[in-house]
């Protein structure tokens, strides 16, 4: 199946899970990355169980914040 990751279309096996994609894409410090699929943000609790499907558009966004 085809999945678009960070704007780039790639071929992956059917049934790929989000944790598998994170590993394949070498996402650094994934626990601090917000994931959107088709412009919907994935809740942290749902990350482990999310299965991707053909045509999904995935973005990885680092949390950006700080304080005085």
């Amino acid at each position, binding site marked *: 199946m085809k999945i678009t990751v960070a704007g780039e279309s790639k071929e992956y096996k059917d049934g790929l899970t989000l944790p598998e994609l994170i590993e394949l894409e070498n996402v650094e410090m994934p626990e601090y990355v917000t994931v959107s699929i088709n412009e919907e943000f994935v809740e942290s609790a749902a990350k482990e169980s999310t299965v991707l499907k053909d045509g999904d558009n995935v973005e990885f966004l680092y949390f950006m914040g*700080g*304080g*005085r």
Partner: protein
Amino acid sequence: MIKRVYIHSRDYDSIVRYGREHLPKESCGLIAGSEDERGRHIKKVYYLTNVDDAEDHFTLDPREQLEAVKDMRKEGLKPLGNWHSHPESPSRPSDEDIGLAYDPNASYLIISFMAESPVLNSFHIEKGEVTKEDLRIYNDDYPDW
């Protein structure tokens, strides 16, 4: 090797203006551009909502962050990092800034308004280690050699 980061005075002025307009709250955004052997070249500054709406904290709005990333891609720009203001503290990462700097590929720009004249610096933060980058402000009379 210390990274050079180039920003046009027009963008610097724009960050100063935006930051001052939002005082006493912290303001924040993203930077994008290109990278070559000379360093990083900021081509576009994004102004995002500080969802903390606070004088001493900031968090980029993730929805606006996503829109900015899509815009960068459309414009052929590379994400280079982020910027935020320190209304009443120096232009250096606070302990919280360091603890929350999760992107080792980002440049972290901090503009301080604690003195009469603003001060802008850029930092690389990785695994709690802070390195000041070589930030160069240029304009059409003084190009980014």
